């Protein structure tokens, strides 16, 4: 067994190459939780309700739970691999060591685009929320949301630029507030504290499965939105003090938090809002938890959920900037992308060039594309990534069987989670096909074209052996 201790403080500030191009190890398990849940929790505040529109309220609940199984598999698999691969880049770095360079390049791009699109969606929602607040406080005109969208992205990019500890401590606080707001709304409206306003039976009457069972399949498309981004905890691998402990703990605690939050969210929203309104995230309910609070008759709940929605969008955008920049930085450091991006700020020890570069990219998407398209682009990138994960873990166990290298966490029942994940990904591809097939094919076309560009042009700049940075023994079968 290789005796490399990935919890060693000796590696603080060092890149996986042993060079000084590394990030600072200052984070703990709570920051990992805040990164994962912070990115995702906005999915409970907006976006998941498109699943209601695709198949009705019951379909959205089934999608919530099946997507929950999908992401539980993702969290288990990710926890094992990333507790061993303690370097920035997350799944990109895993793929580089386990599958091969071209797959790694694709995975890196999945990560960057999934997070950058999600960041754009968050900024759009924050802009919308500001306009709602302006109307609620007496402004009669139509507020221009664009300055607020720009402000959100610029402010959070600045925060990320200044240091990861402050960034994720900020995330920890606002994510906790946003999660507590969901709990308070549930307790206040379900009848546990005071009078309940839930009327599921009456609101579902005559609309149980408006599209039949194909609607349940179609709902899986946006069912991912309940949890999309929890896999982003792996991007902190180079910045946590104890990767072997903090990453599995933070990731698995995160998915448990989200399973609770997603189910409660479905319960309170579907029990108050008619499904047609709830399911239309453009013309109907853009922020369903906020809309539920509006119908509760409590001004305190309206303000709490308004703040919760704003905090959730900020936490998510903040985490997305963190994760996208780490993936971009890691690819630059390996010269999969221009080496200029592989730089660390001399004072703040952040991947500052990658952070700055991705700002205008996020703005292009936030200001130029509709919300559902941005969400779909993000989901598609995530889906391609989740399809890679079962292949990744099967090859990981085959090339380095148990006992050959130290693992911070060993996920149980292998290969059952991998097979389950693959099957659920196949179902979700079909769900995306029902309506967004053109984007799916366009996106895969994009990845094929950039893959050819990487293989025939970009890969010449990559140092072959040096990119394998983990102190592992030779993989079996090679």
């Amino acid at each position, binding site marked *: 067994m290789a005796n490399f201790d990935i919890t060693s403080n000796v590696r603080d500030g060092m890149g996986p190459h042993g060079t000084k191009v590394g990030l600072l190890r200052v984070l703990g398990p709570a920051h990992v939780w805040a990164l994962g849940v912070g990115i995702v929790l906005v999915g409970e505040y907006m976006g998941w309700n498109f699943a209601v529109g695709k198949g009705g309220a019951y379909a959205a609940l089934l999608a919530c739970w099946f997507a929950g199984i999908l992401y539980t598999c993702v969290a288990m698999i990710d926890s094992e691999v990333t507790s061993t691969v303690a370097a920035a880049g997350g799944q990109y770095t895993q793929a580089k060591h386990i599958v091969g*360079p071209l797959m790694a390049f694709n995975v890196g791009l999945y990560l960057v685009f999934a997070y950058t699109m999600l960041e754009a969606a968050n900024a759009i929602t924050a802009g919308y929320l500001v306009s709602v607040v302006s109307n609620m406080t007496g402004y009669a005109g139509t507020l221009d949301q664009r300055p607020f969208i720009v402000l959100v992205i610029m402010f959070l990019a600045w925060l990320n630029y200044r240091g990861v500890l402050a960034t994720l401590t900020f995330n920890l606080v606002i994510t906790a507030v946003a999660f507590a707001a969901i709990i308070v709304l549930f307790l206040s409206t379900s009848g546990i504290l005071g009078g309940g306003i839930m009327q599921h039976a009456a609101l579902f009457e005559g609309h149980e499965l408006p599209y039949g069972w194909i609607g349940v399949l179609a709902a899986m498309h946006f069912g991912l939105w309940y949890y999309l981004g929890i896999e982003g905890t792996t991007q902190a691998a180079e910045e946590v003090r104890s990767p072997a402990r903090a990453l599995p703990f933070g990731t698995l605690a995160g998915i448990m938090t989200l399973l609770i939050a997603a189910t409660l969210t479905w319960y309170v929203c579907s029990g108050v809002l008619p499904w047609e*309104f709830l399911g239309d995230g453009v013309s109907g309910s853009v922020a369903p938890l906020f809309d539920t609070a509006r119908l509760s008759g409590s001004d305190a709940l309206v303000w709490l959920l308004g703040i919760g929605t704003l905090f959730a969008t900020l936490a998510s955008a903040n985490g997305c900037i963190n994760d996208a920049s780490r993936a971009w930085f890691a690819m630059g450091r390996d010269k999969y992308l221009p080496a200029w991006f592989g730089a660390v700020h001399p004072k703040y020890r952040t991947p500052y060039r990658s952070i700055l570069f991705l700002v205008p990219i996020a703005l292009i998407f936030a200001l130029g594309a509709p919300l559902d398209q941005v969400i779909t682009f993000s989901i598609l990138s995530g889906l391609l990534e989740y399809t890679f994960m079962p292949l990744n873990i099967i090859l990981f166990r085959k090339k380095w069987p148990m006992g050959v290298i130290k693992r911070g966490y060993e996920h149980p029942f292998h290969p059952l989670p991998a097979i389950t994940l693959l099957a659920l990904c196949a179902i979700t*591809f079909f769900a995306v096909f*029902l309506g967004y*097939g*053109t984007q799916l094919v366009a996106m895969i076309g994009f990845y094929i074209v950039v893959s050819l*560009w990487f293989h025939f042009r970009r890969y010449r*700049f990559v140092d072959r052996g040096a990119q394998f940075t983990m102190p592992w023994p030779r993989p079996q079968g090679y």
Partner: protein
Amino acid sequence: MAHYKPPVQGKLSQLVDVIVLVALTVGALFVPLWLHMAGSSKTVPAPVASPTWEALGQNAAQAKQYEALGYTPESAHDLILSRFDYSFTFGALVTMIVVIIAYYVLMLKFSEAEYRDVIAEKFGEK
């Protein structure tokens, strides 16, 4: 295996690579939008001429919630009655399946060839 020494990339060449990548990315998102091929738009298959809550299929509880949200039967008409069309052709489904499988096969095949070079250079020839 002989050690591969990659060429040093100049600043201009790096800039060109970034521009190419950004152009491809923006194209992947916006070209389907510009060609009006994006998204699954909803249509109203059976409009109601003089909408009432009953005609829109809403019971008393559902109508009450819509009114609390500020809707009237007229303003809620399209929201309530619009539906997705999930019909598809077998050919389109097969095309999607082939594209996805071909993509992953291509990735794994090219990656495997590159990976063997990486391992050979890192650990030496067996």
